[in-house]
Structure formats: C-alpha cells, structure tokens
C-alpha cells in the first residue's frame, strides 16, 4: 500500500493529459469564452466592446426570449412525463425473454439512431396538409383537417410528438436495464404471497427502479431543454414564435442576426437552467442507497 502510494508521482498525470487537454480545449475554454462574449457587444468576425451586463438586460427585456422560455418550459413539462411514462410502459411490456420482445425492443429503439433531418422529414409527411397522413385520416373520418404545423399550439404539439417518437429508445433501454437488476426472488416471494400484478408493480417494481425513474427524468429534462432541430426543421418556430425553443432563439440572435453577445447571454441563462437540472441529477446519482432492512 505504502509502496504504491509512494509511486503515485505527479508524472502519472501524463496519462490523463490527453483527456484533460480535450476537456480544457473543447469544454472549459468555450464555457469561459462564452461568458466573456456575453459581456461584450460583438459579432462573429472580430473583437467587440465591453458592455457589462447590458446583453443580459436586453435578453430579459426581449418578449421573444420570454416567449421562447415559456415554450421551452411547456415543451419540457409535457414531453418529459410522456417520455418517462411511455418508456416505462414499453420497458415493462418488453421485459421478457421472448423473441418477439427482443424484436420489438430493437424496433422501438430504432428511431433513436435516425438523424433529426430524417425524423422531421418523416413527421412532415404525417402532418403536412394536402398530402400528409393526418389530413388523409381526418378526411376518412369526415373531420375538418387541422394544420398541425402552422396553428398555434398544435405546432409545438407536433414537434413534441416527433420528439417523443425519436427519443423514446433511451428511456426504454434504461428502464429495461433497471428492471433486469431487480432480484427474481422478490417476485417469487410475491407470487408465494399471491400478490396481485398491481401490487407487485407498486410495491416491488416501481420502488426498485425509483432511482432510475429519477435519473431518466433528469436526463430527459436536460435533453429536452436543448430542443432545436425538430422545431427548426418542422415549424421554423412558427406560427408567431409559438414553437420557438430557447436554443432556436439563441441560434437566431447569434448566427442569423450576428448579435453574438446577446446570443451568448441567452445561452448562459439556458446554461444556468440546465445546470440546476444537472445538479439534481448529481445529487440523485450520488445519494447513498437506503440501508437494507
């Protein structure tokens, strides 16, 4: 023990140097640089001038930012519970060793490997008026078609549907992994006690995977706050900005209008929101498990 301790020289740090270099260059440096940018009036092509917290004041006074913030919160509040509930349902349904279950697991996970461009193209075919799937269904049912992508409210809903379809694979897999960790003897004991399926679910399964439920929830909150591609490609944030998420606001301000300082200020605010969610994840994942009885 003492020998190995003596041998742990600073020189050993060289082994973590490649990672630290990449971490510093690609994560730490941009983080601090974006803070610096947020304090300057600056575009993409040269040095700016220091404006203090002026950019933050402009962002917080911008009704478009507030609308994008509201949209994002609504989107997260609706998509995350859906992803958690649906992911759990699929995991429970497919947590068996049959060939059909394996096939269906692969099928439900397959959407996750698609790029956002393909996902949005598929859902455009579903929602677009005239030749889309939904208008055809509405027509068959004798109902007035809804313009899903260009009606306030429905546009964010459509983006949410595409997102859930795209992202459902990861929650399902995490829940499946957690379900397979539950000791089989608990279920045997429940069977001996003649417990109903509902009782087994609420007294054994759900308590056993409670931390995974929390983990999936936090991961999804962090991911869905970063919504961009689906909204950008399906609705372009419209109509009237009702489906514009925060990241799209940052993109428009920073890259389309070249107001990089303001865009950086908005991204710092988003960073704070995501940091809070990540802290929750940290607390949950490092909390000591309860002592077994």
């Amino acid at each position, binding site marked *: 023990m003492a020998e190995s301790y003596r041998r742990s020289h600073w020189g050993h740090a060289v082994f973590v140097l490649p990672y630290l270099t990449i971490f510093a260059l690609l994560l730490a440096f941009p983080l601090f640089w974006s803070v610096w940018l947020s304090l300057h*009036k600056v*575009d*993409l*092509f*040269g040095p700016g001038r220091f404006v203090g917290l002026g950019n933050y004041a*402009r962002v917080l006074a911008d*009704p*478009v930012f507030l609308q994008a913030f509201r949209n994002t919160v609504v989107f997260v509040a609706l998509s995350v519970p859906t992803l958690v509930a649906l992911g759990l349902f699929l995991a429970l349904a497919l947590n068996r060793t049959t060939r059909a279950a394996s096939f269906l697991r692969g099928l439900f996970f397959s959407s996750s490997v698609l790029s956002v461009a393909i996902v949005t193209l598929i859902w*455009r075919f579903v929602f*677009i*008026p*005239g*030749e889309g799937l939904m208008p055809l269904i509405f027509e068959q049912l004798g109902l007035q078609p809804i*313009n*899903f*992508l*260009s*009606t*306030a409210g429905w546009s964010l809903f459509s983006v949410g549907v595409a997102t859930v379809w795209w992202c459902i694979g990861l929650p399902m897999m995490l829940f499946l992994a957690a379900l397979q960790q539950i000791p089989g003897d608990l279920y045997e004991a429940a069977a001996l006690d003649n417990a109903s399926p509902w009782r087994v679910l609420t007294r054994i399964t759900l308590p056993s995977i409670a931390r995974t439920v929390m983990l999936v929830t936090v991961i999804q909150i962090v991911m869905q706050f970063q919504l961009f591609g689906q909204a950008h490609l*399906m*609705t*372009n*944030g*419209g*109509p*009237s*900005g*009702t489906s514009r998420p925060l990241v799209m606001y940052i993109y*428009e301000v920073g*890259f*389309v*209008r*070249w*107001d990089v300082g*303001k865009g950086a200020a908005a991204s710092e605010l988003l960073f704070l929101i995501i940091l809070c969610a990540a802290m929750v994840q940290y607390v949950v994942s490092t909390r000591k498990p309860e002592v077994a009885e």
Partner: protein
Amino acid sequence: MRHFLLSTAAVIALSWAGAAQAQTTIQLQRFFGACEPDYGKVTDVSSAVGECGIITSLINKFEADNPDIDVNVTTVKWPGYDQLNAQLASGAAPDVVSIHYSAISDYQARGLIDSVDEILAAQGIAPTSFTEAARGGVTKEGQMFGLPFDNWTMLFHVNLNLMKEAGLVNPDGTPILPTSVDEFFAQGKQFKEKTGKPYLVQILANETAVYARMLYTFLQQQNSDFFADPTKIKLNTPEAKSVVEFMKRINDEGLTTLGLDYAAAVSAFAQGAGGIAVNGTWLIGDFVAQSQKSNTALAGGYTVYPVPQLFPGRDSTYADGHSWVLPHKDRTPEQTAAIGKLFKFLADNDFQWARTGHLPAVKAVFDTPEFKALPFRGNIAKIAETGRSLPGAVQRQFPIQAILSEELGAAINGDKSVDEALSSAESRINDLLANI
C-alpha cells in the same frame, strides 16, 4: 524488374507533378439545390431544366471547356449564410459563393468580401453590360462586390385551366387578373364559387420570407418610404396597415390554401389545388415543363404574370437577385485568373440561367431572339422597370424578412391585432438595426 519499377514510379511522379502544376482549383459554394444523380455529368446546358439542373450543367461545361481548372462545388441548404458565416469566422471561406443582393451589404460593411471590379475589368466585362437593377444590387460605395447573375421577384403563376372554369379568362386566352383590392376579392370569390378551390396557393408554414416580400411590394405600390432611414423601419403607417388588413382578409375569406410549406405549396399548385401560386421567378421553367406534359393539372394551361398593381400609386414589385461574391482571402494569381474565366463564362451564359425564369442580369440577353422566344418572358419583362429592392444600405435584410413574416403571420392568423403586429415588428427590427 527493378528498372521497370523505377521507370513506372518516375512516370507516375512526373505525370502527377504535371497535373498538379496545371490544375487550378476553385472552391465554389452555392445554394439552388443538389441534383447530381440527374445532372452530375451533363455538359449540354440547353438540355437542363430548373435552377439546380442549369447551374450544375453550367459548371460541368465550364470544367469541360477549361481542363486546367477544377471547380469544387459545395451545395448548401438555402440560403447558406450560417455556413458561410462559420467559414468566414474560422478563416476557411470558399473562393466563390452564391449570395442574394439583399445580403451583400452585411458582408461588404464588415470587409468580408472583396470587390470584383478588377477581375471583371481583366476579363473585359464592362459594368454597364449589366442591367441597372442587377448592377445596383451588387454595387456598394461605388464598387461592385459581386458578379450579378439575375433578378428575381414573386410572381402570380396562373393555372389557366382552373381560371377558365372560373370564367376568369379574356377572349384572347389571357387570364383576368385584378387591378385593385376590390377586384381581387370579387375575382377570388368568383373563383372559389365556380371551382370550389381557393384562389391563391401560398406558402404559409415554416416560412420566413413571403409575407415580407408581399408587404414590400404593396408598400412600394403605395409609394411608402418605409426605409427612408436605412437604420430604422417605419411600419406604424396607414399604408402598412392597409396591406396587412388586405392579407388578413384573404385568409378570413378562405381565398387561400392554408398550412402549406414551400415544397407542399409548389406541389399543390402543380396538382391543381388553386388558381394562382404566389411564388418566385425560379419556378417558371418547372411549371412550363409541367404544362407541356399531358395528364397534369397544368397541361396546356399555365401562364405567369408579375404581382398586379392592387394599390393606387405606382406599379412596383419587390425584387432581389442572385450574385457570385468573393470572400476576402488570399488567392494565387492563377486562382484569380480562373475565377475571372468562370465569371466571364457565367456572364456569357446568362441566357441559359434566364431559362430558369429569373430575369437576366446581362442587358444584352433581353434583346436576343432566344430570350424573346422563351415562354411568357413578354408577360414579365416589365419587372426590369417595376422591380425595386430595399435601399442598398439596409443591413440584415434576411433577419428583417423573418421578423416581418412572423409578425405579419401573427396578425393574419388572428393571433395579434394588425396594429399590435406592426408595432411589434417595427420595434423588433429597429432594435436589431440599432444593435449592429
């Protein structure tokens, strides 16, 4: 054996060195779409149709004519400015880039693009050989900052078959188009009653420009000087209000398709979903091709006109154009010469590009029999006089269009009042311009 191997290696090395010495590469970045499977090898430009087909075969032809020049083409999603900005910021810009006249001032004001005056002069291309509208589009502070390629505008693409059904065709076969707002609604109502279809096919979903282009057009028709100061827009005016109310009434009276994005609107018009598609010059070639096929909704029944003058004042339509610019960077004399040759080739072949439907940038093309023989060019030729852009000093025209379209859309869909939308658009645009 050893001798053979050495000789072979020497021959390969020499031929490679020779090729490397002779070949000058130009990195060209453009929008206009990708169509490599159809046109990747085509050098017969006259057989190509549509923007993508024609520009792809033009570049192929240029490479075939100039074996010492290699043009590396990168196709970007329209309009491609995000990519260009990232390239300029990282010092990795291409040599030649397609750009709208309306975006040139952003790059020129920041010193990000170079003047093309010397390159054009070296090739004997006189600035006066371009139309005034085209030259004006690329000229900033007395210098030309791009090779003008065309002028384009929004048009009324007309389905004559449906117009006949609606009784909106003159005895000479031309469509009856409105000359005032009242006529517009009377004819739109008649069309809807007779055909059961909407009068207009518009792009209203996932869209950032059309509302703004139409607003500019109708404000120009009322002589409204809404950008008298290029750093401030003025939209709280009776003229702007009347335009937005007109656009809203089109929706309210059910005279337009709803919810279609660009691709869906183009396909809907081609399938006969409505009488008049409000879309750009670039679709003329494609719609003509559709009308020449039997069994299509446009078969033998397509024509096209400028957006009519609906407001008293003057006949005017908002026009923009495409050009080729040179991002600021170091180039070898060979590359500069190769770019000059490419510009000369593109200017010499401006007629081919005009087959897309765009108006030529080169004046002489207007007088050629080939251009005059192109379908419907007589109908839209007056755009050369009536087409007007925003003042050249107005920066950030693309984001301005996006803000306008969003706010106008809100008013037209009834999510905001007209006054509220115009005030909001004005303050958002002025905030943008004040913070450049």
